[in-house]
């Protein structure tokens, strides 16, 4: 199938060093993204600490598909099932998180065990032997994988192993998990915010150090006033690296502490997971111009309450719906970009992501590296975006 947008071919929307504005604004492209990207690769769905006990569950989404992630009451196995009754499609689970042995649809009473099996419905007559109850359980997501406590699922059977997909990003996830003496937990609540813009703007912004000294100048002025040390951004960018880790993933290695979080790097796992500051970040596309973002502070296991509290305060200082950093990104990086994208006349349609293409280095593993003001991360994202969007 050749996917075309009017006269524009999807593969033509990403050029070397540039992306077309339609990738952020075109409703049809958004629908194709939901099918060709979110339903065709591994997507992060939960952390094990969120469903720690038998019978625990969490609801989430992959693309537009509502899901339930459960821990089997009997076997402790992790299941990921579609949150849609097999009878007349109502969602069977309403809570964000909880513990349940059964999910009972409140419409006609079809009941499923927490591994998804259909266990019964009111008034057993009305279905003959052709009705195979075994095949009428909640639909299972075909691939589920866990890496270091991070649970991923793929709606397509046809994906490489999770380990292979994470590839060079694995050792950075290992690092995150090892920051706590006894590991980590995502058990300190969540920052939730929303913006009227395309989801990829938030993902790109996750590794875009080029904007730090401009958009976030007031924050860094505050830090300088407090510490007496002013960051030399020009020097910082030369010392720092951004790496294209392959498969759409990318990494930003910080040069010292910027005052915004604990991790020495930002990591993007394609398509919508990030490790930033002291948080796990999940970016959820709602529509072509509506996005939900969830920030889960990473709590360390085996440290004092005080140490984790300090992490929370530092996180809140920059991030979240009222954080000094996030709010400026919402206005400048998202609202103003969405507004500017309306200007399409006279060849204005393209956005530049070419910075630093002239100084990229490629190592023997194929990892592409340039300095931290370069747009290596956006190029990595759109390389994988284009590959999946044009995959037959």
């Amino acid at each position, binding site marked *: 199938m050749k996917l075309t947008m009017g006269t524009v071919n999807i593969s033509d929307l990403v050029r070397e060093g540039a992306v077309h504005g339609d990738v952020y604004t075109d409703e049809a492209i958004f629908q194709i993204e939901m099918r060709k990207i979110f339903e065709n690769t591994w997507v992060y769905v939960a952390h094990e600490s969120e469903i720690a006990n038998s019978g625990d569950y969490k609801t989430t989404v992959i693309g537009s598909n509502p899901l339930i992630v459960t821990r089997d009451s009997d076997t402790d196995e992790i299941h990921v099932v579609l949150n849609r009754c097999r009878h007349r499609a109502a969602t069977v689970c309403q809570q*964000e998180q909880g513990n349940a042995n059964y999910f009972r649809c409140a419409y006609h009473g079809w009941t499923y065990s927490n591994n998804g099996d259909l266990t019964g419905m009111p008034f057993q007559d009305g279905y003959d032997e052709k009705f195979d109850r075994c095949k009428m359980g909640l639909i299972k997501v075909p691939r589920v994988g866990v890496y270091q406590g991070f649970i991923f699922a793929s709606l397509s059977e046809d994906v490489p192993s999770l380990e292979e997909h994470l590839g060079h990003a694995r050792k950075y996830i290992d690092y995150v998990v090892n920051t706590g003496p006894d590991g980590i937990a995502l058990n*300190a*609540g*969540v*920052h*939730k*915010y*929303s*913006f009227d813009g395309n989801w990829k703007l938030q993902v790109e912004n996750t590794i875009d150090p080029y904007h730090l000294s401009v*958009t976030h*100048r*007031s*924050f860094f*002025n*505050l830090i300088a006033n407090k510490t007496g040390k002013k960051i030399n951004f020009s020097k910082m960018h030369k010392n720092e690296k951004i790496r294209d880790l392959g498969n759409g993933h990318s990494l930003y290695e910080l040069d010292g502490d910027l005052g915004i979080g604990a991790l020495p790097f930002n990591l993007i796992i394609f398509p919508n997971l990030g490790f930033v500051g002291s948080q796990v970040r999940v970016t959820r596309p709602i529509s072509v111009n509506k996005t*939900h*973002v969830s*920030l889960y*502070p990473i709590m360390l296991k085996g440290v004092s*309450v*005080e140490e*984790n*509290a300090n992490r*929370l*305060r530092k*996180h*809140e*200082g920059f991030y*979240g*719906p*009222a954080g*000094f950093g*996030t*709010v*400026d990104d*919402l*206005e*400048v990086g998202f*609202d103003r970009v969405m507004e500017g994208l309306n200007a399409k006349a006279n060849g204005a349609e393209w956005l530049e992501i070419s910075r630093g293409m002239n100084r990229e280095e490629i190592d023997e593993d194929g990892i592409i590296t340039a300095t931290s003001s370069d747009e290596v991360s956006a190029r990595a994202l759109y390389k994988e975006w284009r590959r999946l969007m044009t995959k037959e």
Partner: protein
Amino acid sequence: MNGVLIDRKDVEAFLIDEASYLNDGKFSEWLELFTEDAWYWIPSNKDNYDPNTHVSIIYDNKERLGERVWRLQSGLAYGQEPQSRTRHLISNIKVLDQDDQSITVSSNFMIVELRRSIQTIYSGRFEHKLRINGNAWKIASKKIELINNNEFIGNLSFLL
């Protein structure tokens, strides 16, 4: 703001004055209302918990609240460019606790915010702890329980 608060009416006048500072953009004067050991808290996800073990939308001590106000006045706080226009409506005022040094007051609020041509309503419950300080009352803590604190909310860079 001077004088001793004695009844609900005085408390109401205090809350109305506080809201006027916010609605009129007098942020330095507003900041002055807080004690040095004050905190300003907007819980995230739910209304009650220990902020040392659960993230908050805002959990500011006086120092960070001062930085928040400084930032808003710096000319570089893009999240407030354009600036929000707000109106705080306060009602259902109830004194929860009182002794000769302090008073704890619950009130309901509706804040209408206009920004980028969009009017947004925020609603919930304030809990103020006011403490006598010389001959004036100061805010020792202000907690803001938004009814939508577990929703995906927009740019909250204005002061509530």
